[in-house]
């Protein structure tokens, strides 16, 4: 019985551990704290292992692990919600008014992109991370977050606009100046 269990655990590890980096960086971007991200990922793996007998072989293990991770993240966020609310955009709805946010200059650094991502409200950030970083389809994103497909589409669109607006601000602070989105021309740094 021990050897059977060991084989089963080894099967689980062989299949699930390769997604550790993907899960960790997603948790890090959502929790915005390395040690919380580590806890979230560890708890997710434990939960996945406990439920592994329910996993259907042949289906998408990566998506299943992300569903479990987001369950943990949402639980974590409910504990954090009051603190987080004060930190984020109070005017997220403004994103709807940005018909064409400024084009992001090429000179923007990777660090700036990650900082801008961190400033997105969590409901937009999680969709952007899944769709644009993890390259999940709309359907997979909807399943992982347990939200309708239409909500994924609208949050992704708004999230990307907010991200571009934030990066345009960064560009302005560098004196790069966002390029005109019609001509593609901008100021040199």
């Amino acid at each position, binding site marked *: 019985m021990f050897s059977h269990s060991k084989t089963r655990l080894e099967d*689980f590890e062989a299949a699930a551990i390769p997604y550790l980096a993907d899960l960790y960086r997603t948790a890090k971007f959502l929790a915005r704290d390395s040690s919380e991200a580590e806890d979230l990922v560890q708890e997710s793996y434990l939960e996945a292992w406990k439920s592994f*007998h329910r996993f259907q072989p042949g289906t998408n293990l990566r998506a299943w692990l992300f569903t479990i991770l987001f369950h943990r993240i949402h639980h974590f966020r409910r504990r954090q919600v009051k603190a987080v609310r004060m930190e984020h955009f109070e005017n997220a709805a403004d994103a709807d008014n940005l018909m064409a946010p400024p084009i992001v200059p090429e000179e923007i650094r990777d660090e700036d992109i990650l900082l801008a*991502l961190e400033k997105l409200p969590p409901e937009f950030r999680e969709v952007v991370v899944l769709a644009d970083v993890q390259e999940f389809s709309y359907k997979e994103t909807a399943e992982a977050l347990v939200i309708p497909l239409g909500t994924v589409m609208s949050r992704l669109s708004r999230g990307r606009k907010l991200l571009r607006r934030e990066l345009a601000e960064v560009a302005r602070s560098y004196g790069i100046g966002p390029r005109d989105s*019609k001509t593609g021309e901008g100021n040199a740094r």
Partner: protein
Amino acid sequence: MNVLNFDSKLCERTRRQLDAYVSNELLVETTAEVVRHLENCGACSSELESRLRLRAGLRRAALREMPPAHLSQSIRQRLRRAQPGLLAGFRGATWVWAVAATLAVIVGGAAGQQALRLHHARQTVADILLLGVADHLDCAVRGHNYPDLARSQDELLRRLPPDCAGLLPVVEEYLPGFQVLEAHVCSVTGSPRKYVHFIARGEGALLSVVLTRRDGMSLPQGRLLAADSVADVYRAHLNNMDVAGFQSRDYFGFVVSGLGQDRVLQIAQSLAPPARVVLDRSPAATNGPREVSKLGEAASAL
């Protein structure tokens, strides 16, 4: 805020579809329409280029974020401790668990329990030794927190809390053929634990001597657990590193390197007795385990 005057309704429609286009979620027919428009519209293709660039930049930046080296091992250890897969197929039927547990006790008897205790004790040893490995990997290997040329002894002493100064000559003496490059107090990201860390180079490898407070933890005793039950030194191979560890009254000590298990054990065996003498001379050891030592005070001040 930029407000654009679109040249045509076609531009407006294309831009509404760009998000789905970037995500490769459009139907084939719609994709063809968008592509046709992009071929003839500089503004929209420039807009698309910007969106693709941002998406690629976001992914590139995000992929640079890597999990800490110890995380994979920590997860594997927790999974082994959890053991939920043992009777996973019987979940939900509590009485089956009870019967199975009773049968296991009867059938397995004392031998089974002893095997289980040994398994748990080995797990505890690995968990403790991992403290030293994590600090070596995080600070010395990945962090490269040591100079290429060894610091002078005065400089090394200045970097240590006063109570740990006595450790430096011990480390130097019991690491023959090694050059002590660095000494400092450090911590692993995400953990409040502090470490006194000596980094040395010799025999073609980097080696760490790591000391940290036990904080209530103990290396379990037993001939089957310790690699050297006389010197009370334990060893393991974790995260591709060889580690040997020992404990004093209040501290754990670790020797970590890629030199091979036997060599690392040999170094720890010679280092452990004099290191224990220095460590147990500290105020923490004489004042009892609940007292915070100067080492702890100095470390927590960093």
